[in-house]
């Protein structure tokens, strides 16, 4: 069934598989963006919404496009779905070029933030819409609708109208509708953004279960919420200013952010200017705020970063890794409290550290800690202090 709508159209072009392995399933590429660009307007009024975007997603893999508003993540998704036409580059699905194919011929499941349920159709009719469009036989539609609704726990809501459902229920129906056509690629554009915090958490858990239940479906998940990306994605693509900034596994990006933008956007890390000292392997001594501390000097999988002694770098330290200690502690750096905001499980303390002019440091202290603004406290770097990030050229 997955081939319906897709298989009916002859591919306009095909791209060779990335590997000659006999086990094609493991090496085929479900989604392939090949230097895709999207621009609006003409001449001097041209706006580039996506620039030179390259990405490959394997079947069964979940990739999150993470970035601030206007970074181009939704444009990338729209280019893949066929909602916007790339001005440059090519888009492939399962090795078949789909750049010029209309959305109806791509066979992609799409779930949007606004749910986009058809308000005049009942839940079951909404879910059956794609099946009817693909001319699935009437006898098959009923079981397929029931299966899709069951997958999202909405079996008993088939006869309701969308307006009779809550936001979370509507989003479940939207997911069921997208899954009913059994797509090989599922696109989710900020699917949880319209839900309240509690519902978002429960839906996030359900999406994780759904991901397990669809081992062959490639998912592209657009979000500006890093917690969603970290929870769901096998790999995260960090985007900014219409460009792909970094792409790696969630763990790698979190632990060793390749760029200062990723370090700041993913987890809001402190980026403290420092001077690189002696480097041994991936370990370095760095000079920061008149102290010498240990730091990790990571090397990328491809290429090499030259952490030359005496060069400037940024020391990336997560707020929760820093410790607030008494001024008497021998490792303490003297700091002044600029602000303290209780966030439930932690208190975010903003500090001005002696020796780091024009630099505010965020520290997450556990619990509801009371800090007087203007008071002096000690702050201690962890061991190793953090990860080095190259200064943006």
């Amino acid at each position, binding site marked *: 069934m997955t081939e319906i709508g897709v298989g009916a159209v002859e591919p306009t072009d095909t791209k060779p598989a990335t590997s000659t392995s006999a086990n094609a399933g493991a090496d085929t590429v479900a989604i392939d963006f090949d230097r895709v660009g999207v621009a609006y307007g003409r001449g001097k009024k041209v706006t580039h919404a996506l620039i030179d975007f390259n990405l490959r997603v394997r079947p069964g893999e979940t990739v999150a496009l993470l970035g601030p508003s206007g970074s181009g993540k939704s444009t990338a998704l729209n280019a893949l779905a066929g909602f916007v036409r790339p001005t440059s580059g090519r888009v492939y699905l399962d090795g078949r070029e789909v750049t010029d194919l209309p959305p*109806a011929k791509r066979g992609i499941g*799409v779930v949007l933030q606004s749910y986009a349920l058809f308000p005049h159709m009942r839940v079951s009719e909404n879910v059956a819409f794609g099946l009817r469009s693909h001319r699935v036989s009437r006898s098959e539609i009923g079981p397929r609708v029931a299966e899709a609704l069951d997958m999202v726990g909405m079996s008993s809501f088939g006869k309701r109208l969308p307006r009779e459902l809550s936001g979370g229920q509507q989003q479940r129906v939207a997911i069921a509708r997208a899954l009913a056509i059994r797509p090989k690629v599922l696109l989710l554009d900020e699917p949880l953004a319209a839900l309240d915090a509690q519902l978002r958490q429960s839906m996030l858990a359900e999406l994780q279960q759904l991901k397990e239940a669809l081992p062959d479906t490639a998912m592209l998940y657009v979000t500006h919420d890093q917690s969603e990306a970290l929870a769901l994605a096998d790999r995260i693509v960090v985007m900014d200013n219409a460009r792909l900034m970094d792409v790696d596994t969630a763990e790698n990006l979190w632990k060793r952010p390749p760029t200062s933008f990723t370090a700041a956007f993913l987890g809001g890390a402190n980026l403290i200017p420092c001077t690189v000292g002696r480097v041994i392997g991936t370990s370095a001594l760095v000079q920061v705020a008149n102290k010498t501390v240990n730091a990790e000097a990571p090397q990328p999988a491809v290429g090499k970063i030259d952490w030359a002694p005496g060069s400037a770098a940024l020391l990336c330290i997560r707020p929760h890794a820093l410790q607030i200690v008494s001024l008497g502690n021998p490792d303490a750096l003297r700091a002044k409290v600029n602000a303290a905001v209780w966030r439930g499980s932690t208190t975010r303390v903003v500090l001005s550290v002696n020796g780091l002019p024009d630099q505010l440091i965020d520290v997450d202290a556990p619990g509801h800690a009371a800090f007087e603004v203007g008071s002096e406290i000690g702050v201690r770097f962890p061991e190793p202090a953090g990860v080095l990030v190259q200064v943006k050229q």
Partner: protein
Amino acid sequence: MTAVLERPAPAADAPRRASAPRIRQVLWTVPPLLVVLVVAVYPLIRVCLESAKLRSGGLGLGTWTSVLGSQAFRSALWRTVAIAVTSTVGCLILGTFLAIILAFVPFPGSAIVGRLIDTILSLPSFLITLAFTFLYGTAGAVNALISSISGSTSPALNFLYTPAGVIAAEITFFTPFVIRPLLAAFAVLPRAQLDVAASLGASPLRVLRSVIMPEAWPALMAGGSLVLLLTLNEFGIVLFTGAKGVITLPVLIYTRGIVTFDLPGAAVIATVQIVLSLVLYIAYRMIFARVTAGGSREE
């Protein structure tokens, strides 16, 4: 006990305080009510009373039975309804087609076309007929062009003074009344719904049929009801075509009331026209209320 005794005092004040604004409200409604009664209701009542007058001078149903039983009335009623329904169907088909193109098939100058449609709404209906006469009349531009090409001396187009001419003019004039509410309905249709429908494999025609039109249906019905109401009462277009064979109820009222001075007979036909219009207006309001209620539910 004291407290119990003291309670009635404020309680007695309360109704006085509440009644003062109520009286003011009633007083405020009197002037507009009087205006409506004098300007609208009284003439209608006079028309109804006039219809009950007999030629002999008394009151009775004689005029009603003679008018309603006449072939001229039945023919005019049938023609009025036939022209109104045909024009409305034509407006709905043409209006839907044009609205879909304007809303979903962007082309250079679509904004200008939209504004032109708005302009037609502000013109008097007889101007359309006048324009039709210049274009399609026996001595109109189109016939002159055909004659110059074919060399024929008799006009090739001769439909303007027939019911078809009236219907063509009414469709031209009243189609914007269908387009405008449809464009408004299309404008609030979320783009995401169309995108998702397309991604689910629906062809543009299926998206139109299954997603767009069901949601625009109330607006289409409201526009259609309004056009039916207006075409039923249309006088200027029918009069200006000067079609001899096209006698509608408004033209019959004019003929009886102004040309032959048969005021009771004209009043009977006018009363029938009023009833027809009121029934259609109520239907229009009900559909409009449904549209509004549907919109607020979605919010």
